[in-house]
Each structure stands twice: as structure tokens, then as C-alpha cells.
């Protein structure tokens, strides 16, 4: 027992001298023979390497080109089989010596490395693959990164095991996410929350073809709509649901996905007008929403006139029922549509003429607009 620390320090000290010398020699190999391998590995956002495993043959030359495509610094460190966590922890233990050593502990457990690269930098190294077949882990040993940011170099003449069952790569990269089936219009996957999915369901998220402050609502009857809280208006509606998985999982660069068939896309701009049908309000302001039986009742103002709007699905087919409350209008209220948008409009009060509904201020206190897709077609 008492020898263990001694033995360890001997191993580390004695072998490291030897090893660093060797490493220099192999790094200067320039002639690339047949069977040699060049691998371009990119550090990408989400603390991961884009390539999580590759195979080389024993005793062949390996060229690693490391690119840092992330917005923080990373290195690349190849270790002895099974020693990734030891090296990662040793790097963490370097403390203030870490930055100077590129966070690479000087131990024989490290076989080769690319020093710390700042974002957008690139560097290559060449080394000889070990003679002994095995799985040689690599990791970024920047403090803490290597617990999740790693991969495996297989030194083998055979093929690698199936990706799905490979314990040597980060677990989230070992499973291929089953793509949601598009045949159904409701999400077949289990709830992503610690409670069951219950419709209607609202998310504020990044949606395609809308402003960055969007709200998506999944309704009963397999319908969903995207409401833009910046522009204070309905942007589009579809038969189907929203898939936030990639937006949540990554750094947010990937936005939420519309799954299903879009049957309405607004082309008329902000629909409400006051006083004249042709004059769009100058300023809209989002004020929030109240949840009533899980439906959001949006609250916003247009040129100072307060509006409340609740959107539900039509009982059958593709379409929406939009309930408005406008109490402060001092002049007639107009609701403008675009006759080319594929929808049939009807109103609880007043009538649409040439795609425009005109209401007296009193009629605007409470009115419902039903919009139904003329036929269930994909836009």
C-alpha cells in the first residue's frame, strides 16, 4: 500500500521523460505511407467533437487536424485505454499550472495531444498508432470538458462495434433519436416534462418564418398555430405539432420545428385597423396573456387600443376560431384578410366584404372570426 504513491510517481516521472521525447520524434514524421490516416476533428458547440470515433490500423501514422469551431477554447488529448477519466481529473488537478501546460497532465497515460486552441484556430499533429490493438480514448482536457467531451480511437484491423452499442463514446451520440413519425399529427413521443402533455399547450420558443419572440400553441384536434408576440399577430397554423427537441438539446441555434401540414400563412399583416381599413396601426405592444382552461388569451394594444384574442381550433377540419374583445375603439374596427390565403372567413357580427370585416365600436366589444381552410392542402 505504502509503495503505491511511490510507484505512481516513478511511473509518471520516469516514463514521462521517455515518452515526451518519443512523442516529438513521431510528431516530425512527414512521409505518409499507405494505410496512414488523416482525421479532421472539429470541436463543436455543446462540448463535443463532431467525430466521436474512428479506426486506425496498428503501427500506422495518424494525422489529426483539430479545428475549433466552438466559441470556447478546447484541446485534444489521446490517452491509454481506459484512462480518459484519470487524465481528465489529472488535468483538473493541474490548477494554476493548467493554462501553461495546455491543460495536458505530463503523464505516460497521455499518448499524444493537440494543445489548447482558441475559437477558429486549427492545428495538426502526427503520431504513430500504438502497436497494441485497443480502444484509445480522446478527450478535451480543458477543465471539466473531458467528462462529456470525448471520443475513441480504435486501433484495430477489424470493424468497430455498432454505434448504438458503443460504450466508448458520449451516450447522447450513441443513440440515433427516432425521428417522429410524420404520418400522425400528434406527437408520438413521451412528454418532455415531468408531467403529462395536456392540450392546449403553449411554448415560447424560436419558430421558423416568424419573429424571434414567438409563441406556439398546440391545440386539441391536432392543430397548432404560431403567434408572433413581437408583431402581435397570428403568423401561421398547421395540422400537426411542434418539435422543440433540437432547440432544447443543442445550444439553441437549431430552432423549433413545425411537424405537419401548414394550411394557413398570414399575408395581410397586422389584421386590425381603426377608423380606416387601409391604415395599419403604427405601434403594437404585447402585454401578455391569461390562461383560461389552458388556452392563452393574448393581450396587446394597437395604437393604444387594447385587444384580447383567444384562438381555438374548429371542431372538425382545418381552421381556427378567433375570439376578440376590443372595448376602447372610438371609431369603426376593421379586420383585414388576404383573399389569396386559402381560407374562408366568417364573423359572429357583421359581414366580410372583399376580405374586410367592418364593425362599429360597440360591435367590436366581442366578436368571433372563424377561418376554415378551403381544402386540406399543403401550402
Amino acid at each position, binding site marked *: 500500500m505504502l509503495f503505491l504513491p511511490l510507484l505512481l510517481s516513478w511511473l509518471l516521472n520516469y516514463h514521462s521523460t521517455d515518452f515526451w521525447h518519443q512523442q516529438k520524434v513521431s510528431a516530425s514524421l512527414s512521409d505518409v505511407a499507405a494505410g496512414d490516416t488523416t482525421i479532421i476533428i472539429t470541436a463543436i458547440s455543446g462540448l463535443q467533437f463532431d467525430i466521436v470515433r474512428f479506426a486506425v490500423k496498428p503501427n500506422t501514422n495518424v494525422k489529426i487536424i483539430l479545428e475549433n469551431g466552438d466559441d470556447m477554447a478546447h484541446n485534444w488529448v489521446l490517452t491509454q485505454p481506459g484512462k480518459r477519466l484519470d487524465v481528465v481529473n489529472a488535468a483538473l488537478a493541474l490548477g494554476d499550472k493548467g493554462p501553461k501546460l495546455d491543460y495536458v497532465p505530463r503523464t505516460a497515460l497521455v499518448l499524444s495531444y493537440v494543445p489548447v486552441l482558441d475559437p477558429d484556430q486549427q492545428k495538426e499533429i502526427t503520431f504513430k498508432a500504438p502497436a497494441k490493438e485497443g480502444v484509445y480514448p480522446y478527450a478535451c482536457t480543458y*477543465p471539466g470538458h473531458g467528462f462529456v467531451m470525448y471520443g475513441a480511437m480504435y486501433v484495430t484491423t477489424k470493424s468497430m462495434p455498432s454505434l448504438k452499442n458503443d460504450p466508448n463514446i458520449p451516450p447522447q451520440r450513441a443513440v440515433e433519436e427516432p425521428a417522429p413519425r410524420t404520418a400522425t399529427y400528434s406527437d408520438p413521443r413521451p412528454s418532455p*416534462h415531468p408531467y403529462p402533455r395536456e392540450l392546449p399547450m403553449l411554448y*415560447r420558443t424560436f419558430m421558423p418564418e416568424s419573429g424571434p419572440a414567438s409563441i406556439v400553441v398546440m391545440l386539441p384536434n391536432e392543430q397548432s398555430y404560431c403567434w408572433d408576440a413581437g408583431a402581435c399577430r397570428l403568423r401561421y397554423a398547421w395540422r400537426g405539432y411542434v418539435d422543440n427537441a433540437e432547440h432544447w438539446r443543442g445550444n439553441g441555434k437549431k430552432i423549433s420545428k413545425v411537424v405537419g401540414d401548414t394550411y394557413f400563412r398570414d399575408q395581410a399583416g397586422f389584421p386590425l385597423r381603426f377608423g380606416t381599413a387601409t391604415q395599419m396601426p403604427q405601434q403594437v405592444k404585447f402585454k401578455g396573456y391569461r390562461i383560461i382552461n389552458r388556452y392563452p388569451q393574448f393581450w396587446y394594444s394597437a395604437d393604444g387600443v387594447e385587444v384580447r384574442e383567444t384562438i381555438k381550433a374548429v371542431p372538425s377540419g382545418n381552421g381556427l376560431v378567433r375570439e376578440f374583445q376590443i372595448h376602447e375603439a372610438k371609431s369603426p374596427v376593421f379586420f383585414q384578410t388576404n383573399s389569396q390565403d386559402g381560407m374562408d372567413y366568417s364573423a359572429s357580427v357583421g359581414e366580410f366584404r372583399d376580405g374586410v370585416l367592418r364593425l362599429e365600436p360597440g360591435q367590436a366589444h366581442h366578436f368571433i372570426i372563424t377561418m376554415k381552410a378551403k381544402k386540406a392542402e399543403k401550402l
Partner: protein
Amino acid sequence: MRKYPFLLLFLLATFTISAQTVKDSICNYYAIETIPMPQGLLAETGAVDFLPDGRLIACFHKGEVMTYDRSKKEWKLFAEGLHDPLGILVVSNQEVLIMQRPELTRVTDTDNDGRADLYETVTDQFGISGNYHEFAFGPIKDKEGNLYFSLNLASGLGGIFDEVRGTLDTLGRPGRMFSTVPYRGWVMKLDKQGHLIPWASGFRSPNGLGFDLQGNLFVPDNQGDWIGTSPLYHVQKDHFYGHPSSLVWSAGFPDVNPLNVPVVDLDKMRTKAAVLFPQGFMANSPTQPLCDTTKGKFGPFAGQMLIGEMNHPRLIRLMMETVDGQIQGACVPFYDSCGLRMGNNRMAFAPDGSLWIGQNDHDAWTGAEGIQRITWNGKVPMEVYSMNLTKNGFDLTFTHPVDRKTATQLANYQFKRYYYEYHRAYGSDQFDVKPVDVKKIKISRDGKKVSLNLSELKPGYVYEMRLKNLQSTEGKPVLNTLVCYTLNKLRK
């Protein structure tokens, strides 16, 4: 004892060992508890706070806001559907303010059924371009009731939407991190009357805000372009803190790309950090600063500030002071390892004086998920309690009287100093690294204060101190021996 002669021997042996090389640890003074999280929750914790009734309220990456009753070990959903909520400020048992990507929102349970039913926009009068990196942090409330929050810059690794919210200014678009819509890279003040005031500029990733006991506002930033090592700033109105991109939204700033302003000029404009966290070994990504307002319930450091850290299993303690009119000071690890995980993103004190830590490992952050709770057990560790600049060195005040034999040896205080470059590149090496000799040591009569005379004090440098072999009169070693003092101003 006659029956167990070996026991005496054992005790003696133990005593001998402990008297020479006591291995002490923070676990002997604080207990840590890992809070069980609800099943099915992605516990990337965006914020934690406490309701007046003592329940925890926390928000998570997928938009959930949940409460936790520790006595019942019960989680309940309070609100849902928010976009990356990263801040909570409790108003009452039924009402909280939440900072999410698009806005600051007042979330209220108006019918008292435990679930929020009203989401009111408190302010959305700032831009969002759709870039993934435009996080929003805060709010915190000052004594007068004004709110403060901070807006992250966008990242050049991502694009922007075809439609943005707010005025688009292409002059702010270049750069690794950018500010192409209003007030990205700013700390904002929302006064009690509802006016939103751009308060201070020059931030990159200001992930957390906090006040000290006197009401001074502190905001950290993250090492990166223009930031040599992660800083903590004392934030004051109209000050500029160094990252140029946000200057496009500064009133009176000329119509130029701020990145093209000569570095020397930017350097003159900027306010330097009150505390620098040397990258790699002190902190990589400091998070929320939090003042210990427990009046002693959480231990001997009441009134000082703590700050979280993502990349180490660590919380850091700050020892700040005013020198020549400016706040500056030192950082020292506080709770390190001992069961604490990484990813310490948010903190809040419970009414019982325990510290709750929300952890996050979202995407580019290395860290952990979930929530941990730290309680003080009433014993006081041997620590540097404060570090104060003097005319010719530093005064170190310890929590216990020092052992004079070890404390009078010059070699037991190792100083070096260095600076980090202010430049456009990502991060900075340490420059002009030099050891600094301790010339003289004086110990106060009560043994708690050690005054050190240094061979040189130079403004603009970090003074890194490492203590060796120092212990209390009772033989307790100093737990955290690495202390870094940011010296901007000399004592006049």
C-alpha cells in the same frame, strides 16, 4: 482502558498524526445535500429563489417553473412554456418575476390554485435577433424597488433571423460576439415608474447580477474576446466595461464599428474589474454573485459576497474593499469539492440560512444538473477572512488566531503578480509574471491579523498569494490557501 490497551495506542497514534499534518476540509464545517428532482425533468436550472412561505421556486431549461416543499419533499408545477428562463425574483407566494429570452414577465397565480394563470409582459423593450446566444439574466431589485437585468451579446457562430425585434444596426454586427439589436451587452435598469434605462455597457456574457450589503451592483462576465480573464464588475450608471460591440447603442457614440476604435482609446474608456478570476485555476465561468445576508446563519462570512462557478465544483468568496474611491478586492475558493458538483449557475439563501445552488450543464457549459443545498454546522474553519491593501502590502485577517511559529516565516507567504491584456483576441495569457517578496511580517496582539510588507505594489496587476503551512493556534490549517487580489488602485 485496561481491557483495550490497543485503543490507547490507536488514539495516541491518531493524535500524533493529526497534530502534525491535519487534513481539514470544508466538509467539517458545512453539510451538503442533493435535492431529489422530479422524474422526467431536464434539471438544467435557470434560477432559484424562495417564496415567503419558505418553499423553493426554480425554473428550468424547457420552460418549467416549479416549487419545492422540503418538509414534504414535494415538487409542484407553478408555470410552464417559458423560453429559456434564467432569472426569478419572488414578489409573493403567488407572484414572481421571470427573465426569459424575449422579455421580463410577471407570472401570477390569480385564483390561488397553485398554478400561474397570468403572464404579463413587464418589459420587452429590447432587441432579439433570433441569435441563440442572446440570453437574458436577472432581474434583481434594489432598495428603492428598481429592477436590473442584463442582456447577453449574440455569437458570431450563429446567425440572426430574417425578422428581428428592435432596430437592426449593422455596425454592431461584426465580431466574434456582436450587438446588432438594441442593448445586447448592456445592463438595464427598469425604474419603479416603468422606464427602461440602458444603465451600463461593455458586457459579453453577464450571467448573473447581485448587490452587496451597501447596495452596490455587481455583475460578472466570461473570459473571451476582449476579456482576458473572467471579471466581476462594480456596475455604475453610464460606465463602459470593455466589450466594444454594445457601444453602438450608446447615446452619442459615432456611427462607426466599435471594433475599429483603437484599443488604447477603448482602454481609457473602460472601467476595470473590481475582481479578476484568474482563468483555469480560480474560475472559468463565474456566475451569480450573492451577498451572504443570513446575518451569521450561514457561518462566519456574513456580509461578504459569494459567486458561483461553472467549470469547477466550487463556490468562490469575495473580499472587497474601497480603495481610493473604487471597489476592488480578492477572490478565494470557499466551498470546493466535498460533494459539490460543477455547473453552479444560481444561488439563493433559504429563510433558514441554508444556501441552495441551482446547477446547469446546458450545451456549451460544462457542469451538472439539479439542485444542492449547503448548511453550516456552527464550526468556524480557519480561513483568510479579509484581505486589505495597505500602503506597503496587505493585511490578512483570519477567522482564528494564527500559530505564530508558522505565521512569522516569510516563505509561508508566496506572492506573484501579473496582468491580463485587454485586446480583441480571445482571452489572454498572464503577462509580466514576477514573484513579489514579502519583506516583513507583523502579527496583531489578538493573533488574527497578519500585516505583510511587500517589496513592490503595482496597480493594474493581480496579486496572487499562496499560503503555506499556515495554521491556527489550535493546529487547524488554512483551508483555502490561494487568494487573488486585483490591485487597480494603490492606497493613498
